[in-house]
């Protein structure tokens, strides 16, 4: 007797897919939990953790934002190997504005985010017309070249970097600011990607000639997507400049490029929630593995390969599937 696996939506999912969900507390809870849970987690964690892990939480949020930024680009068909580019440009923008012109973080962070996004978009504009591989290549090498330029020309503080930035009001402010931004970006951009606008972006990834054929200028849309992703990344850099009160060559480090990709791939490429989830898993794990030193990055590399080849849907999708569907074995009729 041959059997095959069958996946069926859970009863509660079907019952709650219509307005009648309002009739039952259970069904409303089923719908609300995936949305409210992350909010609760993000807002309460800062209060529950000790100072060491609070710093880790900060990193988690930054990596999550960078991973979301990466995922937005990936959904539009651009694979970035250089999130560090956005991060670094944002960091230097806010650092320079604060150090040389004395602008306060209230100004430098927003301005650096937008300016950083703009600069990176303009820099990468020419590659948008080419095959995707060029985008990956260019995003990979530009931050590495920028590091060497800073080192060699000693601009913006050179190897020592700029220090003595204005700090943010308090540790709590830092944590809640980034958590708030993370939640807003996560839910906001998820909404955007689920809308018709997002459909155009995903269409560009899937079948760009079809989108051109609809009279849409795909390069303009790609540039928009790039700007959003760049601005998010630049925000992270600008934010961290004021947290560490320092900006220097390390902002272009490969780590900032790799970890977000690993988080997105492990968590679930193609959804922003998956990218966030991946960050929440990988960053604490990497902290726990701190003793292993450089071996951590080796592990990221291995993870990347294993997940992209063997489990491309990521952990988040797997959990999502389990939440919405159940599996059973059915007999195959002759």
């Amino acid at each position, binding site marked *: 007797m041959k059997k095959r696996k069958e996946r069926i939506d859970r009863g509660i999912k079907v019952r709650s897919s219509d307005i009648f969900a309002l009739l039952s507390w259970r069904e409303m809870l089923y719908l609300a939990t995936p949305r409210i849970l992350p909010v609760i987690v993000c807002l309460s964690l800062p209060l529950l953790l000790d100072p060491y892990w609070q710093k880790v939480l900060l990193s988690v949020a930054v990596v999550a934002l960078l991973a979301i930024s990466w995922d937005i680009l990936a959904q539009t068909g651009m694979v970035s190997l250089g999130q560090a580019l956005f991060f670094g440009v944002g960091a230097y923008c806010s650092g320079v504005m604060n150090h040389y012109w004395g602008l306060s973080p209230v100004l430098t962070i927003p301005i650096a985010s937008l300016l950083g996004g703009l600069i990176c978009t303009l820099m990468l504009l020419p590659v948008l*017309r080419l095959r995707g591989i060029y985008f990956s290549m260019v995003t990979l*090498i530009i931050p*590495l070249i920028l590091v060497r330029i800073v080192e*060699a*020309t000693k601009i913006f503080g050179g190897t020592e970097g700029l220090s003595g930035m204005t700090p943010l009001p308090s540790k709590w402010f830092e944590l809640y600011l980034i958590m708030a931004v993370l939640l807003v970006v996560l839910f906001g951009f998820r909404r955007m990607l689920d809308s018709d606008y997002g459909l155009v972006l995903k269409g560009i990834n899937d079948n760009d000639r079809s989108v051109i054929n609809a009279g849409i200028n795909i390069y303009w849309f790609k540039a928009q997507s790039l700007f959003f992703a760049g601005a998010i990344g630049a925000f992270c850099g600008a934010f961290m400049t004021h947290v560490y009160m320092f900006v220097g060559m390390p902002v272009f480090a490969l780590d900032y490029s790799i970890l977000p990709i690993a988080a997105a791939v492990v968590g679930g490429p193609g959804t922003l929630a998956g990218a966030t989830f991946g960050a929440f898993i990988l960053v604490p794990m990497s902290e726990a593995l701190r003793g292993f030193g450089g071996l951590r990055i080796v592990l990221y590399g291995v993870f*990347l390969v294993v997940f992209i080849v063997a489990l491309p849907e990521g952990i988040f999708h797997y959990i999502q599937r389990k939440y919405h569907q159940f599996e059973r074995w059915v007999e195959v009729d002759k």
Partner: protein
Amino acid sequence: MLVGTTLYALINTAILALMAIGFNLTFGISGVANFAYGAFYVFAAYGIWGMLNLLHIPYLLAVLIAVLANVLMGALIYRFVLLRVRGQALSEVIATFGIGLAILELFSYFGWVGFEYTLPVFMDRSFIIAGTYVDFQRLAILVFSTVLISGLWWFTHHTSIGLAFRGIAQDERTALTFGIDSDWIATLSVSFGAGVAALAALFIIPLGSIAPGEGYDVLIKALAVCIIGGLGSTGGVIAASFIVGFAERFTDTYIGSHWTMIVSLAAILLVLTIKPSGLFGKQKELEERI
């Protein structure tokens, strides 16, 4: 000084070309962008070092083993990893990138860094050419690079197998209809590129020392040359190597050594603005890929 700078510029060109040609070949034949290229380079270097200094294997044998090991590793990586994600650009890039990362950081972790980690020069002699000192190793690089690249050029333009490779690169579907197995060709291309990386390491590493950082440097230089010259074009590698090689050397001599990287970046940005697919790039722009 002009002559000396020109001479060193030529050598720089040869070094760049030697670094870039393996990556360019792999992409040119099968469209696989092997981001683990830098890792292959360093892997071969450490391999030869280990065989010479730890296992005391004779030089030529060690070289042979290293090249074959690289070739084999390239094939294995294709068969076990890339094959499963072939065609999905996102996954291909991430997979090769992840492998390269893992290998390079592994060597970083082992901490095999230092002056003793280097490969021997071929002959410890210098010559005076046109009033400048040039050591034998650099001359060897110049000669080997020229021979290799002219050989590859001749191969891909004048032999039937080479032309077949170019045909496959240009139109995979038609090639498939001729019964050519594209996976087999792709395996060959990755292996071939990896083998060339091993040879490049053999010639270039003696100028300095081995370090995992070299892997990233080689990857950057290879990518830069390929972007400027155009992916898939041997002529492009030659032209771009000349441009970047001369620009870097002359900037270094006449302007200042910290400007060389800026020149490279400027060259890349310039090419991207004027002719994004590279000087000799045959990458059709989006519209033509119907």
